[in-house]
């Protein structure tokens, strides 16, 4: 079976659905006309809608809880829990003006942007060197970087905590800015290696003959051509930073230094029975920036996700 013809992964097609298959050339529905409508209803639309509803329900519930008045939250018998006719912004107001939430949001953003930029710079240089300079042992280093990608934070956080303490970085954003790249660099190097390989090296040969240095080639030829890859790497790294929990939980202590995920888990969970509204508002506000970013760059996001697996 191994010699069946395969087409290369077309990442744009994954999301846009406009796959350049033969089906598009003649009639757009492919072979689906072979199935009757009732059959498609049962085998396709029904299971698909169940799965999609389950996947999205927690977000609906998060949003609904964030705008429900307190008495409706806890009295499930008098009010229909699935809807509310009198939304309130009390929880969101409390979140933004009576807590450290804006600080936490800022911390998360600051750490994520700094760590991502550092990692991208390091990864661009490393990926270019591995793919194009092909120094002695480049393949070995590439393999080691892939292995580094597989080392999970949950076995590193204990020794890293002692290292962070030794370097005097404990409880400062620098602790996260310097440790997050260990998660990001292996991933983005691997991703960018894939992109750099697709750039024809005849272009680089021309530039070399014209007397360009490697540095000029990288800045003026390779990087402009690899912009989609850079965006993918940037967005995915940013998301990973925003999502990171265990390092932030271990290395940060003071309330105003925390990042959103850690702060919500630790600071909002008190004995208050009415906490749910602000807790869910906090979770929603912490997710929205990523979802908005994702909405603008869906294709890049998917190519980053599948790119890491592809190589």
């Amino acid at each position, binding site marked *: *079976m*191994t010699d069946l*013809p*395969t*087409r290369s992964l077309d990442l744009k*097609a994954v*999301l846009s*659905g406009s796959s350049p298959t033969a089906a598009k050339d003649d009639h757009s*529905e492919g*072979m*689906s006309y072979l199935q009757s409508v009732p059959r498609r209803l049962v085998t396709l639309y029904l*299971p*698909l809608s169940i*799965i*999609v509803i389950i*996947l999205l329900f*927690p*977000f609906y519930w998060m949003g609904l809880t964030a705008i429900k008045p307190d008495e409706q*939250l806890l009295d*499930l018998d008098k009010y229909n829990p*699935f809807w509310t006719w009198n939304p309130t912004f009390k929880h969101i107001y409390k979140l933004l003006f009576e807590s450290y939430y804006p600080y936490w949001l800022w911390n998360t953003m600051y750490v994520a942007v700094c760590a991502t930029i550092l990692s991208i710079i*390091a990864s661009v*240089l*490393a990926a270019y*060197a*591995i793919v194009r*300079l092909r*120094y002695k042992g480049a393949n070995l*280093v590439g393999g080691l970087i892939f292995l*580094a990608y*597989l080392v*999970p934070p949950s*076995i*590193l956080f*204990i*020794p*890293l*905590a*002692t290292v962070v303490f030794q370097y005097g970085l404990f409880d400062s954003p620098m602790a996260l800015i*310097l440790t997050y790249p260990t998660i990001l*660099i*292996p991933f983005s190097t691997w991703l960018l290696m894939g992109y750099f390989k697709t750039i024809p090296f005849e272009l680089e040969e021309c530039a070399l003959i014209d007397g360009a240095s490697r540095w000029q080639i990288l800045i003026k030829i390779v990087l402009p051509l690899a912009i989609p890859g850079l965006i993918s790497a940037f967005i995915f790294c940013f998301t990973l930073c*925003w*999502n990171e*929990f265990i390092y932030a*939980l*271990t290395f940060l202590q003071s309330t105003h230094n925390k990042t*959103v*995920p850690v702060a*919500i*888990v630790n600071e909002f969970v008190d004995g208050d029975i009415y906490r749910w509204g602000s807790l869910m508002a906090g*979770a*929603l506000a*912490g*997710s929205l920036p*990523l*979802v908005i970013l*994702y909405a603008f760059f869906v294709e890049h996001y*998917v190519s980053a*996700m599948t790119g890491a697996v592809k190589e």
Partner: protein
Amino acid sequence: MAEIALTPRPPKTEIREASAWDQLKHNRNWLGFWFMVPALVFLVFFLAYPLGLGIWLSFTDTRIGRVGQYVGTENYEWLWDDAIFWLSVFNTLLYTFVASAIKFGIGLYLALLLNENMPFKAMLRALVLIPFIVPTVLSALAFWWIFDSQFSIISWSLKQMGLITQNINFLGDTTWARICVIFANIWRGVPFVAITLLAGLQTVQPSLYEAATLDGATRWQMFRHITYPLLTPIIAVVMTFSVLFTFTDFQLIWAMTRGGPVNSTHLMATLSYQRAIIGGQLGEGAAISSAMIPFLLAAIMVSWFGLQRRKWQQGENND
């Protein structure tokens, strides 16, 4: 014109001998080394060194704020007799196997569904990925609220349907707590599996299905003999990643149960956090994390051979 032609041309710059510096500037190994420096600094100081340090710490009795003495394998001997540690190993294996198997099943099914032609295809695909984008901790909090013991929407709905009379104590009962965390993990992992497998599915030539249809193949036969064999390499890689991340999961458990009730959802990662950071026993915690390494190595081996096989299938030089 004449004046211009007569003015002496500026002397040509002489061609110098290539100095040692010039040769060095074009030496691949030398350049490559400098290009690698930033990445290597991070990876050596914050990844390789801590990895070694973690193994060393597991042989000491270090506590927070006190440098430890070498104590040999005492931490491991201690763990060997520790029922809670073995419970956490059991939980981790259960969590990983059950969640990964179901994620694979549903993920593959969802990928096949999304690969069909239908209206709003692009939008559906984008929506499906959202659980993967949202920070795990924040969606875990939503699940915490959905699985609340008193105000759970699931208990309420089941009661309205007349299926149960009492609220289900989702996160307070050991079996239910395990089911709930596994469910939340599946919920978060399915989009990743589905979208990556979908990318793999789109590389399959439609003409193969057309030929099979003409030969009278059923839909199951088409899946079994065309789709599945062509997807195997990508399945191997995706599932290795999935297993690896499930095995070392921390944040979902920490946000939902913190290992409770009675340690029934403690994974090795959460137990090591509890012992090392909350309990202060860095040595013991490091021993628990080091005990995860053999399992991870096994997963990496699988991944490696999966990749090799993929290379072999597609031909060696597919750069």
